[in-house]
């Protein structure tokens, strides 16, 4: 398991290779990458800054990954989340999951992202033509996370 909170960019190819190379039990690897978009809630976005709660962030991510491992037969998980100032098109987050079969990998990857969005202490501040603004949490994110509770 790899959990990293860092300013530096990451190389998806390198990370996926690290999860799968020399692992003969791996039959599936599902991954998600989030990027900085140029528009949000009707406004042009020029860049954004990600703040986090050092210490709690790593702990929250580890708890989310542990819960995923308890639900599905996973072989390994990598979560990398960037902080600091990011430009349009920059990678924000990587979640990658390996398992024997695709079903577990797809489900666990989505679960980890849904929980990350509602339980890991990161906050986005966007730069727009009208000035900087904190991104509001979306109700749809709570709904997405809530569907795993049954």
């Amino acid at each position: 398991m790899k959990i990293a909170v860092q300013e530096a960019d990451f190389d998806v190819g390198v990370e996926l290779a690290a999860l799968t190379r020399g692992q003969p039990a791996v039959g599936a690897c599902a991954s998600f990458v989030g990027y900085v978009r140029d528009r949000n809630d009707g406004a042009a976005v020029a860049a954004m800054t990600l703040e986090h709660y050092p210490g709690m962030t790593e702990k929250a991510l580890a708890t989310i990954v542990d819960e995923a491992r308890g639900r599905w037969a996973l072989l390994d998980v990598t979560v990398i989340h960037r902080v600091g100032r990011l430009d349009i098109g920059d990678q924000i987050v990587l979640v990658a999951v390996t398992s024997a079969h695709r079903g577990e990998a797809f489900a666990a990857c989505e679960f980890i992202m849904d929980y990350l969005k509602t339980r890991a202490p990161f906050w986005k501040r966007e730069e727009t033509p009208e000035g900087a603004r904190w991104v509001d949490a979306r109700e749809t994110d709570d709904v997405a996370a809530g569907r795993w509770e049954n």
Partner: protein
Amino acid sequence: MTVTVLYFAALKEALGVSSESLALSPGVATVADLRAHLAARGEAWAQLASFKNLRCAVNQDMVPLTAAVKEGDEVAFFPPVTGG
């Protein structure tokens, strides 16, 4: 009882402080008590009581406002998270 209180994101900006060490009276037993104590400081602090969907963590675990606060705890207040 002394606790460390942390503020993040929009809340930190509104309050103009990111962390403080706070000596509390014995009457403060829960996160909700602590919030009420802080909100009574006036002006910007009053919004702690009205802040929509205010989240809190004790010792780096998210907890409801009813959670207990004890000597040496690290209590954090922040808006709903928006990472990913």
